């Protein structure tokens, strides 16, 4: 009886001890998620209250959770325009766990654009304090591959930039106009250990080239330990080249067109009669219209027979080789088709040339290149 009582007591005690950590763990994660949502909803006070409860020694939060809570609290401080407070919170975060804030840097950046900068400041402070105790890590260096002189002909052709960190690190490429501090373009973050080119399209949304100017390229990197790489920078001069246009198509040659009016052979009796009639009339004119007194002594007028004969022969030839004009619908359709095709070629060439003028090739030359 005593033994059974002991067993029951042990089970109850075991259950009570097992339930306690589970109850403590879940609320911390929920609280962190709720605090993050409060930050998104601009409820800084509510977020701070939740985070303070997570950081309470009785909350049972793990070091990673405490680190994350400090990081979120730093964002809350930033929302309160308290930059120093934010940096201190980041320092606490790094001391609680040096890894978590680095991994979650993108989330923090989404919550507040200044978060990354202040975090880096805190990291420098924390690393500087740690240097006295531990050996400094090897410096993270960056190199890059980019063409010294390249021409981007197509409207979608891009400049390739390949960051080359000395050890796996996340890298970002930014572009800005020389003399301008605002970033014109920022690449996606290239994950650590991934080596592939980053592509930059130096054109506007309509495909027109960016203005002729010098553009400054910056590559930054950070490894998983939060070590920042020394940024590298170079400058490239962008020049829009003259568009490559095509010659308009040659006009249709007359020889390519078929006759729309055909000369169809046709013997016409009217032609024969007209020629013969005129010939006879010509021959008879002097005697028919002239006076006998005046014509007296004229044995024959050669010229009248020359003309009469010519007219008669012309009528006969016209009869034998006579032709009449006949409209050819097939040839007309053929010619219309050729003209339509020609006009379409002209329109296509005009369109292509218009596009080429709007999206001319771009030349990018690195400053210091011998091709300048």
């Amino acid at each position, binding site marked *: 009886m005593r033994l059974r009582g002991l067993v029951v007591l042990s089970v109850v005690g075991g259950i009570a001890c097992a339930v306690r950590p589970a109850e403590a763990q879940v609320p911390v994660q929920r609280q962190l998620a709720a605090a993050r949502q409060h930050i998104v909803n601009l409820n800084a006070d509510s977020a701070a209250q939740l985070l303070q409860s997570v950081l309470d020694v009785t909350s049972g939060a793990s070091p990673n959770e405490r680190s994350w809570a400090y990081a979120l609290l730093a964002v809350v401080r930033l929302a309160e325009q308290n930059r120093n407070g934010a940096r201190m919170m980041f320092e606490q975060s790094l001391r609680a766990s040096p890894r978590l804030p680095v991994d979650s840097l993108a989330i923090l950046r989404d919550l507040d654009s200044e978060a990354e900068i202040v975090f880096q400041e805190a990291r420098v402070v924390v690393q500087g304090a740690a240097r006295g105790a531990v050996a400094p890590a090897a410096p993270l260096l960056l190199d890059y591959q980019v063409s010294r002189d390249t021409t981007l002909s197509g409207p979608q052709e891009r400049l390739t930039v390949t960051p080359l960190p000395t050890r796996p690190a996340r890298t970002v490429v930014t572009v800005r106009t020389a003399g301008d501090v605002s970033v014109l373009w920022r690449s996606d973050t290239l994950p650590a250990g991934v080596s592939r080119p980053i592509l930059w399209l130096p054109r506007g949304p309509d495909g027109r080239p960016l203005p002729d100017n010098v553009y400054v390229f910056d590559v930054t990197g950070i490894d998983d330990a939060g070590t920042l790489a020394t940024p590298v920078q170079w400058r490239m001069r962008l020049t829009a080249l003259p568009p490559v246009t095509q010659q308009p198509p040659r006009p249709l040659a007359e020889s390519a067109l078929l006759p729309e009016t055909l*000369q169809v052979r046709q*013997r*016409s009796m*009217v*032609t024969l009669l*007209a*020629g013969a009639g*005129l010939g006879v*009339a*010509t021959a008879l*004119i*002097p005697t028919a*219209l*002239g*006076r006998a*007194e*005046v*014509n*007296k*002594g*004229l044995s024959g*007028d050669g*010229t*009248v027979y*020359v*003309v*009469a004969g*010519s*007219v008669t022969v*012309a*009528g006969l*030839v*016209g*009869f034998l*080789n*006579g*032709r009449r004009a006949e409209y050819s619908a097939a040839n007309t359709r053929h010619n219309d088709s050729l003209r339509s095709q020609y006009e379409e070629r002209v329109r296509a060439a005009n369109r292509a040339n218009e596009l080429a003028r709007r999206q001319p090739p771009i030349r990018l030359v690195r400053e210091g290149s011998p091709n300048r």
Partner: protein
Amino acid sequence: MRRASASLVLVVVALLVPGAASAQRLSLTGGGFNVQRRVFLQNSLVQQTGMWIGGSGTVRLGKLRIGLSGLMGTLKGDGSSSNPDVKVRATALTVGIAFAPAVTVGAQVEARRFDADAGITAWRLIGGCLRFEPGLGIPGLRGLADLAVLPASSVSGGPSLKMALETTVGLTFSPPRSVLQARLAYRFERFDIGAQGLAGERYEQFRGLMVEVGVRLGR
């Protein structure tokens, strides 16, 4: 009066020619008339021959046809006082309407001047004209039959003409897609002049081969 008429004609042609060249058609030709003139007067017959040269211009404005022509040359007689050499100048204006592509009907006014040692004689010839130009089955080749009957004709300061007619029959050739044109024709003219005073009736005939070449401008 004659000078005023000629000036008016020139003005009309000068005004019409530029428009016709762009809108319609202008034909210009030059050529020669190998002419034989026979004159019957008081039972005697004399004959003169010569070469007249000249030119003509025709404006086609739709169905309207306006033509101006001129010929000049010398008719050589036998050198006697009854058959002397005569210088001739003829100027004619025709206005017609093309009722069909091959048929034109119109009016003609012509002045003809004969200049001989004995003096100058001028004729005024006025009447109607009919032109028939049938196609002969070959592109650009057409027949030609031109008849002018000029009943309102007279000798200036002299008798009227009892009969005046001019006819031209032959061929015209205008090669397709070419501005050139050519004409070969036989021309025959008859003039019966009424008696005046002691002089009896006088019958004159002109005949001969005509050759002309020219150009066509416009549509």
